[in-house]
């Protein structure tokens, strides 16, 4: 593991030196911090996302939406959770009890484990592993077997059809998603998410022409396309409209989760929302500069800000970027119709995979030809005379 593999945990270890907690080893703190991240962020996000989604849906359809529980209906998700817990614990009698029980857990584990490597702020990463992006891609693959096994265990033809569709879709769209992450890795030369975000900032110490390596999305013409491919591929990976064929309610009742009720259904829903959040957070970190505020370096501001405030601003910036993307995802749900299965596969294999490959090749040539400079840097170089500033 890298020297900063557990920044947050290291901080906790340092803080507790000299107190009665001093003998607690680092790896316990690493686990504690991972759990804290999941409980403080992933689970409430899952709940609040259902509320936001229903409010947005209501707004777009000119309804009011949930407004009974708490102010503005804000505690609707808590009421939902209580309702789910009190539902009958139903297992299809002809189904497979063991698989029925572990399938939702696989989905939740897969999506929540991705949280650990997300950089909330400059020093706020539960575990900034040095294979960061690859790690997130790896753990989120657990979702596909979770959905497939749950659909089989339900002993229901609609479920099985939904599960098979979901698995085919996730496996296919993994390819354009991975290929659209590659340009960022080519540009930054690192898989570590914290390092990738750090490179997208504005460094006041350097002359202007040398440092406008801005957000990766505007690094070169190809990354713009790669950003959109990653977003669309993320929609398909998380089974969101217009790619929600696995639970197409007009054909498959409710798809892979038809037979799931109570808390098991809740786990599936939570896993889906958390997966959406992880996808959007990854997009924000890789292409939109993560916690970096555009044009500002808070450490070298004209007044000295306390470090706690800077950390808070960073977290806020990162969450705003992520939630904006989440909002777009929810917006699309009420805007676009659902694709057919053959259109879905055609879009992936005939449209997105070739385009993503082209992007990788184009970015590689760009990085080689312009020595890693971004569009803005190249333009500034031309503007300030001759273009041969290197």
């Amino acid at each position, binding site marked *: 593991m890298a020297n900063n593999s557990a920044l947050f945990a290291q901080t906790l270890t340092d803080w507790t030196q000299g107190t009665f907690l001093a003998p607690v080893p680092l790896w316990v703190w690493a686990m504690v911090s991972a759990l804290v991240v999941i409980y403080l962020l992933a689970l409430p996000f899952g709940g609040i996302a259902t509320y936001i989604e229903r409010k947005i849906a209501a707004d777009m359809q000119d309804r009011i939406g949930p407004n009974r529980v708490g102010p503005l209906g804000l505690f609707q998700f808590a009421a939902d959770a209580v309702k789910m817990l009190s539902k009958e614990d139903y297992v299809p009698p002809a189904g497979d009890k063991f698989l029925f029980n572990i399938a939702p857990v696989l989905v939740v584990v897969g999506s929540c484990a991705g949280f650990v490597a997300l950089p909330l702020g400059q020093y706020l990463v539960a575990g900034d592993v040095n294979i960061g992006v690859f*790690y997130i891609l790896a753990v989120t693959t657990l979702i596909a077997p979770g959905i497939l096994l749950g659909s089989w265990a339900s002993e229901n033809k609609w479920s099985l059809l939904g599960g098979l569709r979901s698995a085919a879709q996730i496996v296919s769209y993994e390819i354009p998603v991975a290929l659209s992450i590659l340009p960022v890795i080519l540009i930054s030369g690192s898989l570590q998410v914290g390092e990738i975000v750090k490179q997208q900032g504005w460094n006041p110490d350097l002359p202007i022409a040398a440092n406008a390596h801005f957000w990766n999305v505007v690094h070169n013409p190809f990354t713009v396309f790669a950003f959109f491919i990653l977003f669309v591929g993320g929609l398909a990976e998380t089974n969101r409209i217009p790619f929600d064929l696995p639970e197409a309610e007009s054909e498959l009742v409710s798809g892979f989760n038809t037979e799931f009720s109570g808390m098991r259904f809740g786990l599936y829903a939570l896993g889906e929302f958390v997966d959406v959040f992880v996808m959007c957070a990854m997009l924000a970190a890789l292409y939109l500069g993560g916690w970096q505020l555009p044009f500002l370096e808070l450490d070298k501001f004209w007044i000295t800000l306390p470090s706690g405030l800077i950390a808070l601003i960073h977290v806020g910036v990162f969450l705003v970027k992520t939630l904006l993307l989440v909002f777009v995802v929810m917006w699309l749900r009420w805007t676009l119709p659902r694709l057919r299965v053959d259109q879905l596969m055609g879009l992936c294999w005939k449209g997105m995979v070739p385009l993503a490959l082209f992007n990788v090749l184009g970015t590689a040539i760009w990085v080689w030809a312009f020595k890693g400079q971004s569009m803005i840097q190249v333009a500034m170089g031309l503007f300030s005379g001759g273009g041969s500033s290197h």
Partner: protein
Amino acid sequence: MSNGIKLILLLAEILTVGSALVVAVNPNILYSAVFLLFSFLGVAVMFLFAGADFLAATQVVVYVGGVTILILFAIMLTQWMYRLKLRDVGSKFIVPAVVLALGLVPMLHRGLTDLARMVKAAPPEKMSEFAASPKTMEIGKALLGSHVLPFEAITILLLGALVGAVWLARPKS
């Protein structure tokens, strides 16, 4: 390395072996496939502890996200939905296979550890440095440097497998 971390490795090894046992003996082929997934995950953790971080992630992406899904797909497409129970174990090889299995484990293990003792090992400080270093960049350099020939061969193999699998599974016409 503290004892807690070693305990995680021990649990991963137990998970690997236990799941592999279920894979080998469970009569239900679907359960075998599911436990194969857990076995793959255990192997990935073992890779991680052996200083192979990139390899561990590759193991999860390729096996859990690819091979297991393919196998589950094939099982679900070839079994009638309500005839899942496969009485599978019970072939004529079962007695020789048990004998072979019981005899082969100690033999293999003994042979491999003897081999490990015979081969000259690297100095310990180099080994601890190797275990802690990130491997992604080294793997990239090796793929385009010292191991470029197998790398190219693999790309051709993968292309061939892709085309061959599509051709084999083409619809009847």
